[in-house]
């Protein structure tokens, strides 16, 4: 079920009313409702793949119980390995099998021998990269002694399949969400209202920004050879905002929806395009994934405690693996590697933690230096997005070389995108004003009159209704 669909607009109020007015007396009933609603939400797309979630849930539930009761180091290691192998095995089979087979065949062909291995014709289950990482974090946390296992299957299954963040994150840690599912929840008016505001802003980002940008970016990327340099630059700018609107919009809706049900999910985006260097960008972009890799890969590998070589190796690994997590294509690996190249100079010169506050803190406008830093960081991410969006590395390189051609200074073909630029302008302006807050409509009710607040809500609502682009699936569903 898509958040930006009529189905969800009907589904959400029904679940909300049942949750707070019918099943509110008993915690286990509320959790059961969440579980059933989550399976309906996911099964709406393709019910057959519910079995995968159920399988992953059962495995990690059992592993969790055994880990909790076992004292033997060898046994605990074996249990953890079982969880890792099964979860990554599922991910590898559905997402990466064809990639490895094709590259294997290609490598043999390069050395002059032909081998025949057939690829699979399978659909990639939506959200598999998200829920497998979520269940993995549960087993790893128990193994590391950070978390007590749960004996309540319904609670655990609701944690794995929690519908607001099931298919595209934020990738929740068991240490954050599971305790919330185990506690009695009381309706919080302020939290629910703020949740609605965040949903509203998420819908603006998805429907007005991402869906409108998608049409133009797709047109330009699909026929990039015929476009001028300036149009190609415009195309990647539109994609840059498409992916931000799409993914952070989804996260906003997910977090807002969770707040309606009394849950607090971790923040996933913190206005990343206002970052002053790449290190800051990665502290603000897809935070739940970056911190997942930091905690479960980077730190176990030794983090930045070793020498220079260790830092370079570990940083490169997490960026490349993070890129590969996004998709089985060399373009994603190149995207990750490029970001590692951006990041390493900062890390090695110990400048990766300079910008830990927000840009232009306490001021309305940034300084000239900050404008330059933000502009440079934006440009670097822009170049990296070309790899992310292109079909192949050669396409990406050609795209970039065409951007840098003589026609870069020509007037671009806007492809009907002038209005979309206005919408992007509204997004940037609003988020800049609210950059110290959790989300763009996070208002302090005492400092803004009720009329002004409602005026803003209605303006955003009517922008969504009137200027929304053609409905598109969320990009991150494919990851």
């Amino acid at each position, binding site marked *: 079920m898509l958040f930006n*669909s*009529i189905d969800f607009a009907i589904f959400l109020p029904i679940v909300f*009313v049942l949750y*707070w*007015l019918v099943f509110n007396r008993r915690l286990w009933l509320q959790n059961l409702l969440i579980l059933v609603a989550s399976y309906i939400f996911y099964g709406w797309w393709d019910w057959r793949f519910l079995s995968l979630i159920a399988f992953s849930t059962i495995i990690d539930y059992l592993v969790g119980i055994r880990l909790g009761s076992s004292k033997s180091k060898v046994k605990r290691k074996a249990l953890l390995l079982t969880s890792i192998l099964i979860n990554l095995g599922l991910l590898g089979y559905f997402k990466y099998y064809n990639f490895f087979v094709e590259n294997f065949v290609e490598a043999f062909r390069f050395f002059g021998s032909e081998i025949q291995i057939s690829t699979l014709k399978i659909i990639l289950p939506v959200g598999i990269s998200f829920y497998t990482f979520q269940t993995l974090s549960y087993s790893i946390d128990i193994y590391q002694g950070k978390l007590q296992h749960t004996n309540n299957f319904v609670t655990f299954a609701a944690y794995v399949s929690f519908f607001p963040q099931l298919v595209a994150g934020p990738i929740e840690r068991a240490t954050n969400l599971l305790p919330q599912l185990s506690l009695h929840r009381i*309706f919080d*008016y302020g939290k*629910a*209202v703020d949740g*609605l505001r965040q949903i509203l802003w998420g819908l603006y980002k998805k429907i007005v920004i991402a869906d409108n940008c998608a049409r133009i970016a797709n047109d330009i990327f*699909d*026929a990039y050879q*015929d476009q001028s340099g300036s149009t190609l630059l415009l195309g990647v700018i539109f994609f840059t905002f498409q992916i931000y609107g799409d993914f952070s919009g989804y996260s906003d809706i997910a977090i807002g929806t969770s707040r309606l049900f009394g849950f607090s999910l971790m923040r996933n985006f913190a206005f990343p395009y206002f970052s002053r260097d790449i290190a800051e960008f990665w502290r603000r972009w897809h935070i739940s994934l970056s911190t997942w890799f930091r905690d479960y890969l980077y730190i176990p590998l030794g983090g930045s405690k070793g020498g220079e070589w260790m830092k370079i190796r570990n940083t490169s690994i997490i960026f490349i693996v993070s890129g590969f997590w996004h998709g089985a294509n060399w373009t994603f690996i190149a995207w990750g590697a490029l970001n590692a190249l951006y990041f390493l100079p900062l890390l090695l010169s110990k400048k990766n933690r300079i910008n830990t506050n927000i840009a232009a803190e306490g001021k309305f406008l940034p300084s000239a230096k900050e404008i330059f830093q933000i502009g440079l960081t934006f440009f670097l991410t822009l170049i990296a997005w070309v790899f992310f969006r292109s079909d192949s590395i050669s396409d990406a390189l050609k795209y970039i070389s065409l951007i840098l051609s003589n026609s870069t200074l020509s007037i671009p073909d806007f492809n009907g995108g002038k209005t979309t630029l206005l919408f992007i302008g509204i997004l940037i302006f609003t988020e800049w004003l609210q950059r110290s807050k959790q989300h763009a409509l996070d208002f302090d009710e005492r400092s803004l009159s009720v009329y002004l607040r*409602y005026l803003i*809500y*209605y303006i955003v*609502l*009517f922008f969504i*209704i*009137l200027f*929304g682009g*053609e*409905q598109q699936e969320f990009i991150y569903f494919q990851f």
Partner: protein
Amino acid sequence: MLKFITKVFYFFFLAAIISVVALLLHKFLFNNLNKKHPVSKSLFIWGDSQAKAGFDLSYLKDTLNFQVFSAAYGGQGVYDFLVFAETVPENSQVILSISQLAQLREKDKNRSGIPLSFLFKMISVGYYDFIPVMKKNLMPKSLFYSTSGLYPYKDSLTFHEPIEKFEIIYNQDNYSVDKKNKLYMAGLKKLKSKNCSIVFVEFPFHPLLSPVLSENKSKETIDKFWLDVSDMLGCIIYDTIYIHSEKRLMHDLTHMNEVGAELFTKEIFNNIYFPRDQHYYFKLNDGFVE
């Protein structure tokens, strides 16, 4: 809790009221195409990107002195066709290009709202997609324009989309095509009831697509649709015209370039100058133009 539900209800209730008022104002102020334009010497065109690229509107206006209203847009869909049928004045001269791709594609890029009179028809054939209907009815954009959007001439063919994409479209299990075709029929009935003179045009494809077009899973469905149309309207003349040129006429696999569009438009209007009460069916050289 109740305070929250009440507030949310009032918020959306007020939004609905604002929407209705805006819709009524819009309809009252802008939706007066019938009154503005005289029917005589007016020509109404409907189609998707093939028609947009294939009709040279300036030729029609300047040479034949037609008042042309084209509603041809890329990805044009069945909602827009229903709006078109509703909007076109009685006794109009109408050219329609309901392309095979318009029938087969799963998602249309409709621009205007659906008239309420067709809402029940839509429900009755099981074609539900209420979000665009609700959204676009709030502030419908004008369906018609009068300036050409032709592709400039190029020596080489542009490949926006690979042939494999067409193979997929033509050979997929398309569950919406029957429902869509029923809605097209509903629109055609509306035009017939308005006593419009209708000409159907099928635009050419590049020969590279001929293997896909001649043998595919959807052929039977498409052929049946045209038989039904023919039965319903009583089409009496079928014809094919041939265009000869030294120059390349296609921009890409499905769209003509400006040279093709000009030749095509000339041929069509020099051959048929719209005798009333006749229905024509045109096809170019078996659907292919080199």
